[in-house]
């Protein structure tokens, strides 16, 4: 079977390249925008998603994990007393000042617990032992801090809230939406760093259910015992933290607008090149009809060309986005594109190209077959 669609497409390589670039541009833009968006949103909830808790007890109406009020730490005992709770601990999340060797003061976001090892927090430890945090004025600092604070090494000292603390470990991928570097320290140490605000108080209680325990029953019991707190599952809390940034920063709107513009540009380029190509080959399509072909044969040719452009354009766009991803990683950003978004973008590229071909279909259906006789 002679593949007229493919041969015609490859016969005019420049036009084909322009069509491909249109699709690739749209796909790249979608991936990069979506990837950055998801990557940033991921930062907004990355600690929630990794911390091995089924429920979070949260100060009432707290909007996201970074900006928590405090409540009495003694509430922990009430939570631990509820049947179905396997274990529960206090967690402090609090912004503090760090003085750098240069003399500059920067903000760090402190996560403090009595025993991090039981909660999978932090989840990537590159150097140091988490158990050692309880032994003195020590901290773990995330490697991402180097971008703002400059290089640091385990056994270096830094001043936090004007107290000299030794860095005894380095973590990876522990990020915050605010881009403030994360520091991990012992719970009591954190309280002593800002005793006025934190003495006897905590930001959260995290808890793990016993096997077979009824989550909703435990939750309603916590609500009964702590009426001035919220209780959220890990998924609910992560979602709420992400939504806060989407709604308060216009990030979502920006992402949707850029994706829309990218798709629009892609549609325009593909429509234009396919349509021009159809018009230039209109006599050939007339010939297809003259030798016994019908509109369906011509639709197949144009449709196939659109599909080839979609598949190859998607591949080129994905490759470009991968390259951009490598580039932005060096800038401390991350492109996160979940498989479902890849599949949706692929399907979108196909729909986009077929939609672009629709105008050509319309034109072909109205070819005057006598065009084949014109000189």
């Amino acid at each position: 079977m002679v593949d007229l669609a493919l041969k015609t497409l490859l016969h005019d390589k420049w036009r084909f390249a322009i069509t491909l670039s249109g699709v690739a541009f749209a796909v790249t833009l979608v991936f990069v925008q979506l990837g950055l968006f998801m990557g940033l949103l991921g930062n907004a909830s990355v600690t929630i998603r990794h911390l091995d808790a089924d429920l979070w007890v949260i100060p009432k109406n707290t909007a996201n994990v970074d900006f928590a009020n405090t409540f009495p730490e003694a509430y922990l005992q009430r939570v631990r007393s509820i049947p179905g709770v396997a274990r529960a601990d206090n967690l402090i999340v609090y912004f503090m000042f760090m003085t750098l060797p240069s003399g500059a003061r920067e903000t760090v976001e402190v996560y403090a617990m009595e025993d991090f090892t039981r909660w999978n927090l932090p989840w990537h430890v590159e150097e140091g032992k988490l158990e050692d945090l309880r032994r003195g004025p020590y901290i773990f600092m995330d490697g991402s801090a180097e971008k703002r604070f400059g290089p640091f090494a385990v056994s270096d000292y830094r001043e936090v809230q004007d107290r000299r603390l030794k860095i005894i470990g380095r973590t990876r991928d522990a990020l915050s939406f605010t881009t403030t570097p994360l520091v991990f320290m012992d719970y009591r140490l954190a309280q002593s760093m800002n005793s006025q605000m934190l003495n006897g108080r905590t930001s959260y209680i995290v808890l793990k259910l016993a096997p077979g325990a009824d989550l909703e029953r435990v939750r309603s019991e916590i609500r009964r015992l702590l009426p001035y707190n919220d209780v959220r599952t890990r998924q609910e809390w992560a979602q709420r933290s992400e939504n806060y940034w989407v709604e308060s920063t216009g990030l979502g709107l920006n992402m949707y607008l850029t994706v829309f513009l990218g798709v629009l540009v892609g549609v325009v380029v593909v429509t234009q090149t396919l349509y021009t190509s159809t018009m230039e080959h209109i006599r050939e399509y007339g010939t297809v009809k003259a030798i016994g072909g019908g509109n369906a044969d011509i639709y197949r040719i144009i449709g196939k060309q659109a599909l080839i452009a979609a598949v190859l354009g998607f591949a080129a766009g994905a490759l470009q986005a991968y390259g951009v991803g490598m580039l932005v990683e060096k800038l401390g950003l991350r492109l996160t594109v979940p498989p479902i978004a890849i599949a949706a973008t692929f399907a979108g590229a196909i729909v986009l190209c077929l939609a672009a071909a629709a105008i050509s279909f319309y034109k072909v259906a109205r070819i005057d077959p006598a065009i084949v006789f014109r000189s």
Partner: protein
Amino acid sequence: MNNVLEARDIVKSYQEGTVATPVLKGVSLILKRGEIVSLEGRSGSGKTTFLSIVGCILTPGGGRLAIDGQEIDMKRPRQLTATRKKSIGFVFQQFNLFPALSALENVEYALNIKGVKGREARRKAQEVLETVGLGERRNALPRDLSGGQKQRVAIARALAGNPSLLLADEPTANLDSQVGEQVLGMFRDLAKRDNRALLIVTHDPKVRSIADRVAKIEDGLLVGEG
């Protein structure tokens, strides 16, 4: 059934705004198997319109058309397509070859459209191309062929699928005199050999040398046959 083409009282007008301009005013023509007819007339006389109608490309305003004994209902596009596919082969003044396809693929594609696929299509295309003397140039693209060679590929394509009726529109118009004569000779041989009817619309008086009959259209009417 000896008649390949029976066109009776074919009428056609073109609408320009509110004015209808009659082009064909009742043209009748019959072609038998193996018969070659040269259809002549001045530019604008309606000969190409007539060719388009008997080629099931254009719908007439009135009249009757039968091809291979089958009455054609011009209001049924599917029947028109099926008739073009099965019974008609076209040769155009501008050759109308697919520029992205080689000589062989041009012929093979026509066979594909007519329902012959795969190796059989390739074998038959090769055969027809050899019949027109272009077996050696089968892989050449149209841009690499001379005018005469292009017209021979176009003839091979028209012959693909073994149609009973060949319709040619000014087949020698873009060829020099010597090549035109060669092409006409080939036309005659191929039509006679396989007993096909051949209708050639032309200005070229040389076509008369291969025609069994000459018909002339003037002001939308068939004014003379000889």
